[in-house]
């Protein structure tokens, strides 16, 4: 089972079986190989001889087929009342609406495309039924080749006009006729749920209706022989009503309640103190009344089996299923089994009849078997011709109508797809617009951040400018602060002066610009610089102050020591002895000297 099979739920059409005794509607769903009931509806029609004159006399003329006169409005109401899904409807048809013709077609014809085969088959059927080919809706399935048989195709035929009318009737109520299935194929398909025949098994399905009965003889899984048999439950009820002189409806009720039972005694003799007939004796009494038609039915079925076995002598008759409303007659399978000496069972689920492939949720009763089988065929994913479990199904809906329905379905699907795409497109386009607007908003946020950052940059520049201004002011203030070297320098001079040296004068000239380690001739430039205003001379680069010291020394040694001391002192530069002469000083001779040096002043 594929994953798609598990995920996808298949749904059959709402399959109707319009019978004379009642209407049955079934819809099945299938998911992952499990078939379940979607909804079912069964409406019984009370048999009444007064309402239906054809029921009064067993030999009266048959009325119109139930399906041919079905009420589409009633069908639409029934669908509305149920829990069915969708508007697709399938119909089950059986003789006399549908007819079956075994036809022999040349193998060359069968090798042609399906449309060609149908054309040839329609012409053949028209020849056999002496009707116009245009008025026939024909489908077919291949028949197994038997000994001495000529037919290799079974054609199922329905009047095209009738099928078209049904389509139109249902279309007026917004229903679509998706399938018209023939009852024999539907019953065979349902019977395949009950058991699995071998290729050489020969078996049958007897559809006992109120007005008509149809026997389908199946070879393997292929319905090979389909024939209407001269038996009907209406006939049996009529016989009972005549025999017991009771109304038809009472006879029908008695027949359903008590059924038939095989007996050799017939009607019991009168017993003292008891009524003439007890309820427990009714099946036997009914069996006596219906003995002849039941035997006739069994013989007819047996003859059909024998006829088919002539073509398939190697096959053995395995069993017979009884379906339709007549199969509800209690004791009927036993009588038929006794007559045919073949296992006979009703096509119904029950504790005593185990099915090989039971349908969960679906309670199969004989009178609903055709509807359920047709629903199964409609649900079938793989046709029987490709190995499916069921019998070959046919769909007698006119090809033009099917194509029109397919067109409508595809149009709806395409329109839905386009609408869905349009909705998705609109949705994604809207989402894209929202995203685009969000991106625009994001761009605005980025622009705002950029502007904010520009503002910060501007503030940073302003702050830096302010900082530079403050630094300038601080530098100005700091530049105005002067090193106060002279007090310390004078104290050092007084302390470091050696013994025997007396200073009598000190002259500190106004500062001049530091000439650096210039040659001696540059000294001539000093007066020029000194002649400038102080403010002009006080340029950056340090200033030199010329210091002239006057005094007396006791001897030249003391003077030289003083000179050496000055040259060592920090801040003193180019200390030179200008003059040293012997002069009297305080009554003695002393060396009068004059020293000139320079002191380094730090720049302002």
């Amino acid at each position, binding site marked *: 089972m594929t994953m798609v099979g598990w995920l996808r739920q298949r749904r059959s059409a709402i399959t109707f079986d319009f019978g004379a005794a009642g209407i049955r509607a079934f819809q099945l769903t299938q998911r992952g190989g499990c078939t379940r009931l979607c909804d079912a509806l069964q409406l019984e029609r009370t048999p009444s001889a007064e309402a239906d004159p054809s029921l009064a006399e067993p030999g009266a003329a048959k009325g119109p087929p139930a399906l041919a006169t079905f009420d589409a409005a009633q069908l639409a109401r029934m669908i509305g009342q149920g829990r069915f899904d969708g508007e697709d409807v399938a119909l089950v048809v059986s003789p006399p609406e549908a007819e079956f013709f075994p036809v022999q077609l040349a193998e060359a014809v069968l090798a042609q495309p399906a449309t060609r085969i149908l054309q040839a088959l329609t012409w053949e059927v028209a020849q056999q039924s002496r009707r116009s080919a245009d008025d026939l809706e024909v489908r077919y399935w291949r028949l197994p080749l038997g000994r001495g048989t000529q037919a290799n195709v079974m054609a199922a035929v329905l009047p095209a006009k009738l099928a078209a009318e049904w389509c139109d009737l249902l279309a007026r109520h917004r229903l679509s006729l998706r399938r018209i299935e023939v009852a024999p194929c539907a019953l065979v398909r349902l019977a395949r749920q009950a058991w699995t025949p071998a290729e050489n098994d020969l078996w049958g399905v007897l559809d006992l209706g109120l007005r008509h009965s149809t026997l389908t003889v199946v070879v393997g899984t292929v319905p090979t022989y389909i024939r209407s048999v001269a038996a009907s439950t209406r006939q049996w009820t009529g016989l009972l009503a005549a025999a017991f002189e009771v109304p038809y409806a009472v006879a029908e009720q008695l027949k359903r309640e008590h059924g038939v039972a095989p007996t050799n005694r017939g009607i019991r003799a009168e017993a003292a103190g008891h009524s003439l007939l007890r309820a427990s004796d009714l099946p036997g009494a009914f069996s006596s009344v219906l003995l002849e038609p039941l035997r006739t039915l069994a013989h007819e079925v047996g003859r059909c089996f024998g006829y088919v076995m002539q073509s398939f002598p190697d096959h053995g008759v395995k069993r017979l299923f009884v379906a339709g409303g007549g199969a509800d007659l209690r004791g009927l399978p036993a009588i038929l089994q006794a007559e045919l000496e073949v296992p006979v069972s009703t096509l119904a689920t029950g504790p005593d009849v185990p099915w090989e492939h039971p349908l969960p949720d679906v309670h199969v009763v004989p009178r609903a078997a055709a509807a359920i089988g047709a629903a199964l065929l409609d649900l079938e994913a793989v046709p029987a011709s490709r190995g499916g479990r069921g019998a070959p199904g046919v769909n007698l809906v006119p090809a033009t109508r099917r194509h029109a329905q397919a067109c409508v379905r595809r149009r709806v699907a395409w329109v839905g797809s386009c609408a869905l795409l349009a909705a998705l497109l609109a949705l994604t386009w809207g989402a894209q617009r929202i995203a685009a607007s969000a991106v625009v908003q994001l761009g605005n946020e980025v622009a705002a951040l950029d502007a904010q950052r520009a503002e910060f940059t501007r503030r940073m520049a302003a702050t830096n400018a302010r900082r530079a201004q403050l630094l*300038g002011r601080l530098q100005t203030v700091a530049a105005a602060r002067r090193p106060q070297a002279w007090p310390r320098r004078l104290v050092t001079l*007084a302390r470091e002066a050696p013994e025997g040296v007396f200073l009598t004068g000190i002259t500190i000239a106004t500062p001049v610009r530091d000439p650096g380690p210039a040659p001696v001739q540059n000294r001539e430039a000093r007066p020029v610089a000194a002649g400038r205003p102080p403010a002009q001379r006080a340029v950056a680069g340090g200033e030199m102050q010329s210091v002239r010291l006057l005094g007396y020394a006791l001897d030249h040694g003391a003077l030289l020591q003083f000179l050496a001391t000055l040259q060592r002192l920090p801040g003193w530069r180019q200390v030179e002895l200008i003059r040293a002469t012997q002069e009297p000083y305080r009554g003695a001779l002393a060396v009068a000297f004059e020293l000139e040096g320079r002191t380094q*002043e730090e720049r302002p």
Partner: protein
Amino acid sequence: MIICHRPWKIYDVDAVGAAGVLVFVLAAIWLVLGPWQRTWNSYRRLADERMAVGAKLRDDVAKLEQVDQGTKDLEQTVGDQLARAPNADSYSRLLSRITDVAKECQLELLSVAPQPATASGAYLVSDVQIGGRGRSRDFILFLDRLAQENPYQSLWACSLSRVPTATEPLCDLAWTIRMYLLPAANDGRAGGGS
């Protein structure tokens, strides 16, 4: 109408529907996929840009706060320094203080001749020529006290002389003090700048 039977049965509505779907697909490419791509690219670019700008902005904010704080400290320092530095308004008070310190140092002032202030760069300079008498030690003490009280001046020129035969240790003193003044507070040049 069936326009193709095999390998698949195709009706005319299928062609029309497929064309419609194709139109929608093309419209989706044109209206949605293309703009989505552009929007996505713009979003990524702007998101990266916003992240980078945000990080830079945070750095700028932190740096600006730091610079602001430094500037405030600098302002405080400059304010303190300006409060201490003499200016043109306090010139007379400075002269008075000089004479007071000289007297306190036992110096006899014979003349005090302040010169007009002249601009020298960002500040004003004014030379004060002072003449007097006193001991050299007192003069050094005077210079030391003046240096401690007002570092915004310097000894510009000086002459100490004593008669060698004099018995008293008094010297003739003549010195010039150069005063460095900031412009007056109401002067437009207040604060100067580099």
